[in-house]
């Protein structure tokens, strides 16, 4: 025994000597205890640290794609480390990625309305592309609530490829959600307005203001939304809210919540009920049940009207063709979330302490048997509430949004309670858990005012469980106060154990914008490029650009009296050429390729005082144009610290005055 111990300690000493980072002497759990005591950490804290601490080089198991709120971006965050890996510029120019400072302008401009640039976005709901109802890791979609736009991000290079502006509406909220094979990207409207930004006085609300949902056809081959194959469905002028696509047994259907079935028009200044009261007057609002398979057929049969050049199935056709049914739902609802097998819909009404669970089978029966309790003001049949409800579960105050685990648990955020509730599903899910069906199991307090929640793959046909993140709106006292504007708080919750154990194990401040929804995908489903596949790659076309400058072809070429083309390459640590001389007033078409093949050998490129800054990742080529209208001497340089001679990576752009 003694010799073995001796051997072990020699071995341990050897390991310590070999590891340069290890301090001299053996570390033991006693050191851990001392460090914990010094910082006042409990055993629970240490356990949380052990579950989340990610030493250098260790990679995350899951990746969060989070809306970036006002930043107009998407945030990419690792789980369980809760480290921000990067942001993806979408609706807003972003200098580090060079987005909107030489490249990306055309894509950004596709989101403009009537030539008016909209250079911010209110990103709300990201949607990962799906195959058979499961994330496939290929594309990400995100909406801009403020301007009713949808963007497409290619997850090979994490860059925005397309922005489409909805020609019908000003705002959206029920997007983005995808159908189970990403046939369509769903964009439900929000605040009703007349079609296509037209004017109509507020007293004509009932007649002129419209509700809608837009079905953007996604062309996976091209990686773009095909606007020519897309259409919208007119809905009553309720304020459609969140949506979700049916899956498996409910494939072909989609569901939208709504508020303001009261058709309130506000007017607090005229002593009329303010929106906050008028919109919440009724005890129930309407859950919209839409047969999108049938709607697609109606669209293809041409039973549409053109609005602002966009096909819309008018409400009378919607009703005639039986595309839309309503059923009452608890007022002021937020999420309508379809269970993993597609068999139930969970609706949380913020002003009702219950979640209401609808059975899709009962909805189908009610439609088939015409079990209507009546029609709404616009003639849409309303399914009898009692005949479609499966269960109501009291979970707590301010229920908002629901996600699912693999074991028959559902999780609902409770805004007013500042908590996340775990409750049980019944029916085919009953065998997954030991508690009675349709009952609250546990509530974990969060800090504070949770909006959406995201569980690992928790809105797919096969949720993973393990982790849930509470996307909290307020952080109040959780972090150092950064002035009166405080960060939001993403709290990681361990949901790997059943029953009442689901502790918060990490707080991540988000001080860049207010995220709304975020999806969590298993990291191994993503397969991003680490360098562009070939030198001369244009990320906007995802192909080699035949015009891309290549080594030995660098030059400054005068095309005519007022046009100059620059063909430039960048490699550690020089640009070729290093002198670019043009004449005052010349149009400069500048093409530049990063000819590096090494991972992370990104070069920046700025032309000062011309508002140009590019991020050129290995292999990438970019083209930008500008008018050299101000004579002068401008040093251009690499804006990414690329190498030991990074400072020297520069050149002179000389604009000669004309006589």
């Amino acid at each position: 025994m003694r010799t073995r111990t001796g051997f072990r300690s020699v071995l341990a000493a050897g390991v310590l000597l070999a590891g340069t980072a290890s301090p001299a002497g053996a570390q033991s759990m006693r050191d851990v205890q001392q460090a914990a005591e010094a910082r006042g950490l409990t055993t629970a804290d240490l356990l949380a640290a052990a579950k989340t601490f990610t030493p250098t080089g260790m990679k995350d198991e899951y990746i969060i794609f989070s809306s970036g709120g006002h930043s107009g971006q998407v945030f990419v965050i690792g789980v369980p480390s809760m480290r921000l890996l990067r942001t993806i510029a979408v609706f807003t120019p972003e200098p580090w990625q060079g987005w909107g400072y030489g490249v990306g302008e055309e894509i950004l401009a596709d989101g403009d309305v009537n030539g008016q640039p909209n250079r911010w976005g209110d990103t709300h709901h990201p949607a990962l592309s799906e195959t058979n109802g499961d994330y496939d890791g290929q594309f990400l979609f995100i909406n801009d609530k403020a301007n009713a736009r949808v963007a497409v991000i290619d997850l090979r290079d994490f860059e925005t490829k397309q922005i489409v502006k909805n020609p019908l509406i000003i705002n959206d909220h029920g997007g983005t959600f995808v159908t189970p094979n990403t046939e369509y990207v769903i964009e439900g409207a929000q605040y009703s307005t007349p079609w296509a930004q037209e004017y109509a006085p507020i007293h004509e609300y009932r007649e002129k203001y419209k509700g809608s949902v837009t079905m953007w056809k996604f062309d996976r081959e091209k990686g773009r939304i095909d606007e020519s194959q897309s259409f919208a469905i007119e809905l009553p002028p309720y304020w459609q809210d969140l949506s979700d696509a049916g899956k498996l047994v409910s494939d072909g259907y989609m569901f939208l919540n709504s508020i303001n079935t009261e058709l309130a028009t506000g007017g607090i200044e005229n002593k009329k009920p303010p929106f906050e009261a008028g919109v919440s007057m009724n005890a129930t609002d309407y859950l919209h049940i839409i047969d999108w398979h049938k709607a697609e057929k109606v669209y293809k049969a041409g039973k549409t009207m053109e609005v602002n050049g966009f096909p819309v199935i008018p409400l009378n056709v919607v009703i005639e063709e039986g595309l839309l049914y309503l059923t009452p739902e608890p007022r002021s609802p937020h999420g309508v979330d379809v269970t993993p097998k597609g068999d139930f819909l969970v609706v949380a009404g913020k002003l009702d302490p219950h979640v209401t669970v609808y059975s899709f089978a009962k909805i189908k029966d009610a439609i088939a048997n015409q079990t209507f309790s009546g029609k709404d003001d616009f003639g849409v049949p309303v399914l009898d509430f009692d005949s479609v409800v499966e269960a109501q579960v009291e979970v707590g105050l301010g229920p908002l949004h629901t996600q699912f685990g693999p074991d028959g648990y559902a999780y609902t955020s409770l805004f007013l309670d500042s908590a996340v509730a775990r409750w049980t599903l019944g029916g085919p899910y009953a065998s997954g858990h030991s508690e009675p069906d349709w009952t609250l199991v546990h509530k974990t307090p969060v800090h504070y005012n949770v909006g959406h929640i995201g569980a690992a793959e928790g809105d797919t046909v096969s949720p993973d469980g393990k982790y849930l993140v509470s996307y909290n709106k307020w952080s109040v006292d959780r972090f150092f106060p950064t002035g009166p504007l405080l960060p939001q708080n993403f709290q990681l919750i361990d949901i790997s154990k059943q029953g009442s154990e689901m502790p918060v194990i990490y707080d991540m401040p988000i001080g860049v914008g207010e995220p709304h929804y975020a999806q969590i995908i298993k990291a191994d489903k993503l397969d991003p490029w680490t360098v562009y596949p070939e030198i001369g790659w244009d990320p906007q076309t995802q192909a080699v650009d035949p015009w891309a400058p290549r080594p030995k072809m660098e030059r400054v070429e005068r095309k005519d009296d007022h046009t100059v083309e620059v063909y430039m390459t960048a490699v550690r640590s020089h640009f070729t050429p290093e002198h670019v001389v043009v004449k005052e007033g010349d149009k400069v078409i500048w093409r530049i390729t990063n000819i590096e093949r090494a991972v992370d050998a990104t070069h920046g490129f700025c032309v000062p005082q011309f508002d140009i800054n590019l991020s050129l990742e290995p292999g990438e080529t970019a083209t930008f144009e500008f008018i050299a209208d101000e004579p002068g001497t401008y040093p251009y340089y690499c804006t990414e610290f690329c190498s030991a001679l990074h400072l020297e990576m520069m050149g002179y752009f000389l604009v000669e005055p004309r006589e």
Partner: protein
Amino acid sequence: MVSLLDSIIGPRLDRAEIQQNEIRYGAPGFFLLVARLLLLVSLFVPFWHMELVAPQYPDNLHLIAYVNHLAGDVSEIDSLNHYIGMRPLGEAAQVERSIGVYVLIGFVMLLELASWVHSRWAVLLVLPALTFPIAFLVDLHLWMSHFGMNLDPNAPLSNSVDPFVPPVLGTGMVGQFKTIAQPGLGLILSSIASVFMILALYFHRRAYLPLLKAQKAQAKA
């Protein structure tokens, strides 16, 4: 003329005698056959590789030399080498790489011939293939010293790196890079082939020297 050819190809044996002493007369040819096969295989595998180890390259950089081409992180190594003024690797040993395959095939054919020659001329036919591994390393060393000792004095970092010659086998240091040079499978196979050639020559001598001596004695008599 005939007698010169006779003296080169050496004494011939009749079939019966070969069959009686299969091992004695078969061994040299067998070993040469193995050597030829090994050399042919070596054409398809790396002869040499160098690993460059530095903190910012967690997977290290690799330079792999085949008889006819370079592989691995050539462009990255070139882009680093330009800092110290070293010429691009593609400019080294261009002739050797363009003819390397044919030369080795030629060597294999000489070995084929050697198995038909029963005199000391066989040594001359075997010698090029036998010494190939050493010639390869010497050539590599000469190119590395030529490149390492002739750095462009106008290069960005010409002041901070002295001319150097990394060891053709074993470890060295250049800037923050540790270089680890190792023989590739091809070099190992061709070296084993050389061992088989030496064996072949030994058994060749044992088989044919007595016959030659007998021939000479007969001639004298």
